[in-house]
């Protein structure tokens, strides 16, 4: 440890990895020296947490540590140990039939879930143990220096005073851990197992398969996912790009149009557009999907009037359905952008336009040099969130086409308008292919994270925070 510590401190301080190892090193050193130099109370605290503080009269702290350790042991013996001991195999006991009665064996699903929980709890205890050592260290130091220790009353009331933030945050942090962090860790783990329809808990076991699923995702060939993944990913990115920027610019255009001096009934136009927001999206989408179907209203009337002799395959032709999706998204997306843009456009200082006009700028020049930079500056973060939102825009795609049309040329039941996220949904719900769904889930995260980070750093509002002040 001492070695790695010295080696790491030699590296520049800005390197987060080096900083981590150096912090780790100094932690270990402190644990060691505290033990070597500490009195017997401190030494015993290494085994029985909170022992030192208790004997030094720090009842509240000492009891806290002691109870935490007791609870941990009780949890491990009564519950955690039976799961964590099977973590490496995810269970070996098969389900049996005794006469006609079923005796379930190991439940891989629960083993994985509770093992992860137990690992997190073990980590928490290790941190708590480290705090307990630091506490002993501080107490001994204060006593050596002849300073008084913190009183119990003061320690307890601090949770309503100096440490009030911890009291307030305890419940939210716990909630986020239980309902967000734990499931995410669990789902990531699934990507490294063979959990699918033929390895279904509780009757069948599933187990670790390493990187097998990722290999499958990137393998070409009849059952490999690579070419389909490429197709779906490309469409996901193309869709997100068009969905974001068409609504953005058209929404802005509509807002400017309505804002223009001399346009009458401004409120009426705005209301008409906002009505699309008032109708729940899934109702309007399902309705529109039906309207453009082969036997829908649009085709029905066109046929009746003799405009066409064959129904237009709005949803069954891959290219046409992609175009339709983008167009319909414009229809439901414009009102939101129009509302945002209306407010912002009124905020642009009119003296900018006046001086531009005096200098003889054309309307296009004014838009390009004043309106657009200002809008991009203010709505940059909105653009980014709507882009990532569109990457995962389940509603529009699923309600309009369910990802279809599918094709024999795509694997894994994917369709030509499937986004990664709708494909993932199909895999989970209809194909019960949890392992590949988890892999796709990780890919969705990677794509979203990489794009968000790159774009975020390019935003004018991030690069030049004071640009318009």
């Amino acid at each position, binding site marked *: 440890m001492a070695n790695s510590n010295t080696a790491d401190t030699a590296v520049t301080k800005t390197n987060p990895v080096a900083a981590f190892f150096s912090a780790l090193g100094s932690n270990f050193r402190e644990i060691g020296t505290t033990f070597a130099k500490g009195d017997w109370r401190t030494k015993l605290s290494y085994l029985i947490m909170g022992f030192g503080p208790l004997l030094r009269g720090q009842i509240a702290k000492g009891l*806290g540590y002691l*109870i*935490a350790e007791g*609870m*941990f042991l*009780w*949890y491990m013996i*009564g*519950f*955690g140990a039976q799961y964590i001991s099977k973590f490496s195999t995810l269970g070996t006991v098969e389900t049996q039939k005794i*006469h*006609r*009665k*079923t005796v379930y064996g190991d439940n891989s699903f629960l083993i994985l879930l509770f093992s992860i*929980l137990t690992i997190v*709890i073990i980590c*928490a205890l290790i*941190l*708590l143990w480290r*705090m307990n050592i630091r506490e002993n260290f501080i107490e001994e130091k204060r006593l050596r220096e002849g300073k008084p220790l913190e009183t119990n009353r003061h320690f307890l009331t601090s949770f309503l005073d100096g*440490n009030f*933030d*911890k009291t307030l*945050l*305890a419940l939210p*942090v*716990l909630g986020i*851990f239980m309902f967000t962090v734990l499931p995410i860790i669990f789902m990531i783990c699934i990507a490294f197992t063979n959990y699918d*329809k*033929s390895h*279904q*808990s*509780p*009757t*069948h076991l599933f187990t670790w398969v390493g990187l097998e699923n990722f290999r499958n995702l990137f393998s070409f060939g*009849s*059952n490999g996912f690579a070419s389909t993944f490429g197709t779906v990913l490309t469409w996901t990115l193309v869709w997100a790009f068009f969905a974001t920027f068409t609504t953005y610019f058209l929404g802005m255009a509509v807002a400017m149009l309505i804002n223009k001096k001399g346009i009458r009934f401004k409120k009426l136009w705005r209301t008409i557009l906002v009505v699309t927001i008032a109708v729940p999206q899934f109702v309007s989408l399902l309705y529109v999907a*039906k309207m453009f179907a*082969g*036997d*829908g209203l649009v085709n*029905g009337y066109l*046929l009746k009037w003799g405009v066409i002799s*064959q*129904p237009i*395959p709005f949803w*069954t*032709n*891959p290219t046409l359905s992609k175009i339709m999706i983008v167009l319909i998204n414009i229809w439901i997306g414009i009102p939101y952008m129009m509302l945002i843009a209306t407010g912002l456009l009124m905020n642009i200082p009119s003296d900018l336009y006046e001086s531009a006009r005096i200098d003889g700028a054309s309307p296009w020049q004014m838009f390009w040099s004043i309106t657009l930079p200002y809008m991009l500056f203010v709505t940059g973060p909105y653009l980014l969130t709507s882009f990532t939102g569109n990457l995962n825009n389940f509603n529009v795609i699923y309600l309009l086409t369910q990802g279809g*049309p*599918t*094709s*024999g*040329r*795509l694997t894994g*039941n994917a*369709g030509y308008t499937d986004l990664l996220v709708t494909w993932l949904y199909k895999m989970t719900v*209809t*194909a*019960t292919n949890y392992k590949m769904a988890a892999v796709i889930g990780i890919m969705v995260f990677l794509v979203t994270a990489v794009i968000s980070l790159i774009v975020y750093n390019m935003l004018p509002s991030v690069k030049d925070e004071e640009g318009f002040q």
Partner: protein
Amino acid sequence: MKKKFVAIMMAAATAGTLLAGCGSAPATDAAKADTAAETAATEAVAAATDAAEAVTEAAEGATEAPAADAGEVPGLVEGDYSTPQEVKVWVADNAVDFTNEQIAEFQKANPDLADWTFTVEPVGEGDAATNVITDVEAGADVYTFAQDQIARLVSAGALEEVAPDNVAWVKAANDEGSVGAATVGDTLYAYPVTSDNGYFMYYDKSVVTDPSDLDTIIKDCEAAGKNIYMEINSGWYNTAFFFATGCTLTYDTDDQGNFTAANVDYATDAGVAALKEMTKLANSSSFQNGSSAGNATNYAVIIDGTWDAESIKQVLGDNYACAKLPSFTTEDGQTYQMSGFGGFKLVGVKPQEDDAKLSVCDALAAYLTSGDVQLARYNAIGWGPSNTTAQASDEVKSDVALTALADQLQYTIPQGQYPSEYWDRAKALGDDIISKTITADASDEDLMAELQTFQDDCISYAQ
């Protein structure tokens, strides 16, 4: 930094204590289970002598059983039912009231079960399998499901075998197709409840001049500007073409519900003929992909099942007519009668950890699928019975749609077990035809290549 660290610690500590609290519940549950097991064990010893008697009785019963096979519904086997338990039943939404009534009758017939709780929840036959598999332990104990789900249920361990005592009765009382559909490998896994899950042709008498020929039907409908509905992007409906020309597609399953082999010969001249006819139909300006009468518009022909009979009758009025599927003629002059799947609904029992409850579930499933109840169900909600006695009754025989279905069922193949990937793949094939990825003027070689990949994919699902 340090403050943050402490904050996280505190949160973790509270989390730890809370979770430890959670941990206690399963422990006590386990303790309860243990004591329950002990009492069960002592009871079991006491019941052992009873059981011995029961066995001899059963043996006696077995000798006289074959005579009464088809008639007498197997009741509850003798046993100790003094501890009331809860039995959850899933049926389709429209069958909930009917099932509640029948369960009340069942309890009346079995006074031992007076204190047992039976809850009926509405879960459609299509969703039941997915819901049971998603969480086997929370799933229903007795549930109705569409028979194409059976392999999936068996391989997921969500379906118990039919009690050995009931097997002979089930096989004798129901038609052959439905029994075949309830069998995986050589084991009977479920109780047939309907055999009306097939499709035939509803048509408009004023438009269609000759319901027996597909080409004439297409011409008539194009001339009248009316739609022809057939869901060709479905593995269920597209077999009407493939099985007609003599192609086969079946899967072998073992007793655990795993697919061991695919018997498929789509990549043949017969397959190409069928595929050509499909593209021909899809190319018609009258063609619409779909089979749901509720969503269909302006139609003169719809290939659909008995479940939509009422709504079609309302739309077509006096012109309402039903017939078996038409036949079609290929370029080389061969005529083929369209075929397809015959399908069935089944009642299944979930694997149980308690013998008494298992017996009750079996008895209930047998009761709900008995001839009288099937006939009552037909009268109440119109489900066509699988029980041969119920089928022979006058009420069932006078039904136009059911008669057309009976005609068509002669040409169909009882639907066996198919892996769920097959349905997705068949949808993809249909989508390729509808989206003109496979065009009507494609060469025979191209069509053969499409069918070859389809066939290879089908074979790959059985490994």
